[in-house]
């Protein structure tokens, strides 16, 4: 007897063509009741391991199409994390040098990954956190016209990538979505995927899970030094829930223990918020966007500690 034929595997012309179309999995063991279905979109399955591959590719495609980005220019971006690594991949394959501005206290793991992908690193003051990296990158770009800064916080290609990709993929896969939960960083996922899903499911609740920063990362002189990303319109969020580091890590553990999914810190925060919202429902479907996997956090000191807040308080984790 001949074995069942298998579908011919799709051969991608480049790793960039493997971005998106991520799997959606039901979280049956985590659901608080059978009438509330929980789903997770596994963005860690993208080529560099995070949702930011979508954003990096979309921003570079848009800049090349508009003529703003041409051979000979250099890329600059404030990021210490997933966006830097994603941009480093796209920049390398498209032939642009990349400089990442990142807070001086970023983990060595992260620097190593950025350097391996070929990115150059400029440090901003650790105590100013991500706001400081944004500020320094804007200054550098203003003084050197050879830099092109995609600037994920203000680039419409960021939410568009989630409108056309993340959100559209969920709308195609599911017949019903009542709540969308994603981590709040730049606001790109919530704005883009939220807008697309609202078209298919008009009563959708768009919910943000937001990290509670520790004192040490709020080295701002006044509230006026705060920052709201230009692409984020808070009025378009229906819920905005603060999640502590300890709650996020508990969420990571729960996801791993119950469902066998190893998510990153923000994924744990999203799961925590999703469970809170799911408990308010009698029935419905809740979709969680899990932005990355836990692999890039393995060297962090919070896995084995009894006091997660003390261990994590000096950091912003997404």
């Amino acid at each position: 007897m001949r074995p069942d034929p298998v579908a011919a595997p799709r051969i991608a012309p480049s790793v960039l063509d493997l971005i998106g179309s991520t799997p959606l999995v039901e979280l049956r063991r985590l659901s608080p009741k059978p009438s509330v279905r929980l789903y997770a979109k596994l963005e860690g399955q993208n080529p560099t391991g995070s949702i930011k591959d979508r954003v990096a590719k979309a921003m570079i495609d848009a800049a090349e199409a508009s003529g703003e980005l041409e051979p000979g220019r250099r890329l600059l971006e404030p990021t210490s994390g997933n966006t830097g690594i994603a941009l480093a991949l796209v920049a390398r394959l498209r032939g642009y040098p990349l400089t990442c501005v990142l807070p001086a206290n970023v983990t060595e793991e992260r620097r190593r990954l950025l350097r391996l992908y070929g990115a150059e690193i400029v440090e901003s003051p650790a105590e100013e956190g991500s706001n400081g990296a944004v500020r320094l990158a804007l200054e550098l770009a203003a003084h050197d016209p050879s830099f092109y800064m995609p600037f994920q916080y203000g680039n419409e290609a960021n939410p568009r990538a989630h409108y056309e990709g993340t959100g559209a993929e969920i709308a195609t896969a599911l017949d019903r979505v009542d709540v969308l939960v994603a981590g709040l960083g730049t606001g790109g996922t919530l704005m883009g995927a939220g807008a697309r899903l609202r078209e298919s499911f008009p009563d959708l609740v768009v919910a943000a899970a937001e990290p509670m920063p520790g004192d040490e990362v709020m080295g701002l002189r006044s509230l006026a030094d705060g920052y709201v990303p230009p692409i984020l319109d808070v009025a378009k969020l229906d819920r905005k829930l603060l999640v502590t580091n300890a709650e996020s890590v508990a969420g990571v553990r729960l996801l791993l223990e119950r469902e066998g999914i190893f998510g990153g810190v923000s994924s744990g925060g999203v799961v925590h918020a999703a469970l809170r919202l799911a408990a308010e429902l009698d029935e419905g479907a809740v979709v969680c966007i899990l932005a990355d996997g836990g692999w890039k956090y393995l060297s962090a000191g919070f896995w084995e500690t009894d006091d997660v807040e003390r261990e994590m308080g000096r950091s912003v984790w997404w």
Partner: protein
Amino acid sequence: MTRVRIPPMLRAEVGGAREVEAHGETVGEVIEDLVGRYPALRAQLYRDGDLGEFVNVYLGGEDVRTLEGLDTPVRDGSTLILLPAMAGGSPGVGRHEA
């Protein structure tokens, strides 16, 4: 009575306290009670009579902007958290390492 958590950049205005008590039946009343006793906070928290763009206020862990804003009712014994708006999207900004 409502406990109000004060972020580091505002603590000098309240004598260094991390948390202070305030009274009121809505978020707006609690904040008014607070700025009544610590007037230097007013300029930091308000812009044109509403919460400043970079001021986030959370009740029960939820941003009051997605509740009823300054009109959100406050139950006795709740905690209000004041935080600056922070740029996210930079996961993995790690602790100080050797």
